[in-house]
């Protein structure tokens, strides 16, 4: 029975789900949950938040499946729902006003220092360094407005173009451009402040 669902097309699964066929909808969840999780992981660093977002996405998708006409891919349609769901969750969460050097732990300061020293080279990161950087970037992103975070995540980590971001968010292309401009500036300024402070703290140590 389950195998027969695996062979069905996305459109057929969507139609059956609209007719309250739970097994068909379960197949949609199985098929696309890795993609939704991967996408939602860009927005949240806690697993519980990613799971909450993914569950919300599929609940919304089930209620809106009657509007899916099969013109675009179901994956694209679900990605759009994931984008708006994550943006809403980000908007509901409180932003941290500023990340200061006192908020950073030793390994994060070391990471920034090592990157500053090896700035001119393409330094290969170890697993540990990657984990530190991932945590640090989340903390920097937490200080940015939700719309800035969304646009940075979509364009810088997902590699989406301005047109694709506009489609995913429902914004105009000019709004995406302006938002990206501001988001890059704010992110850069936030990192710049940290770099200045870590450099100062290093000088004080010496």
């Amino acid at each position, binding site marked *: 029975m389950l195998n027969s669902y695996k062979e069905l097309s996305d459109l057929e699964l969507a139609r059956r789900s609209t007719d309250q066929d739970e097994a068909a909808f*379960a197949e949609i969840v199985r098929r696309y*949950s890795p993609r939704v999780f991967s996408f939602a*992981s860009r927005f949240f660093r806690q697993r519980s938040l990613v799971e909450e977002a993914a*569950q919300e996405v599929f609940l919304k998708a089930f209620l809106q499946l009657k509007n899916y006409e099969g013109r675009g891919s179901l994956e694209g349609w679900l990605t759009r729902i994931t984008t708006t769901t994550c943006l809403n969750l980000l908007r509901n969460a409180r932003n941290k006003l500023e990340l200061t050097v006192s908020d950073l732990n030793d390994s994060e300061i070391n990471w920034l220092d090592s*990157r500053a020293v090896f700035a001119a080279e393409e330094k290969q990161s170890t697993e540990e360094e990657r984990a530190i950087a991932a945590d640090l970037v989340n903390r920097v992103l937490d200080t940015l407005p939700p719309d800035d975070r969304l646009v940075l995540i979509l364009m810088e980590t997902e590699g989406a173009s301005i047109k694709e971001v506009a489609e995913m968010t429902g914004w105009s292309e000019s709004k995406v451009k302006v938002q990206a401009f501001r988001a890059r500036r704010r992110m850069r300024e936030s990192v710049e402040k940290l770099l*200045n402070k870590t450099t100062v703290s290093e000088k004080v140590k010496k």
Partner: protein
Amino acid sequence: MKSKHITKILNETAFKDLSRVEIAEINAHADDCARCQKAFQAARMSSALLENRAAEVFEPPPFFETRVLAALREKQIVAKPIAAFWRWWRASSVVVFPILLVVMTLMALTIFSPQQPLQATAASDDFSTEQIIFQGNDFNQTLTTAQALQIIYEQNNSK
């Protein structure tokens, strides 16, 4: 170009998408401008941080679809109880309907089957005490002991 700060380029273009020409322009300017040098360094760092962020991905837990379906049912029950009932009925009617049919038949048989009147058991024995006591009397009528003895006495006398 040297007089023009390069922050605009950094804001307009993702660091990884900067062309060689743009990077050359930025470097040329940054050599003489400490402010832009810091901005360039921060942009490079931001890009490296975001790149690391992209590598971190969570996988869905096992049986995630079961959890979604359970949440969906819960939501539907709260939002539309009647619709939820009909959905449940459609899913389980094959099992529930025969059981309901049997239960209802048994109930009907219990309620509507003809009951044996009490006189019928006593009717075969003209001399039984019940026959004597209840003959010609309403079942609902209660008799005192004296009345019952009087009836028995009269019955015996008449025989």
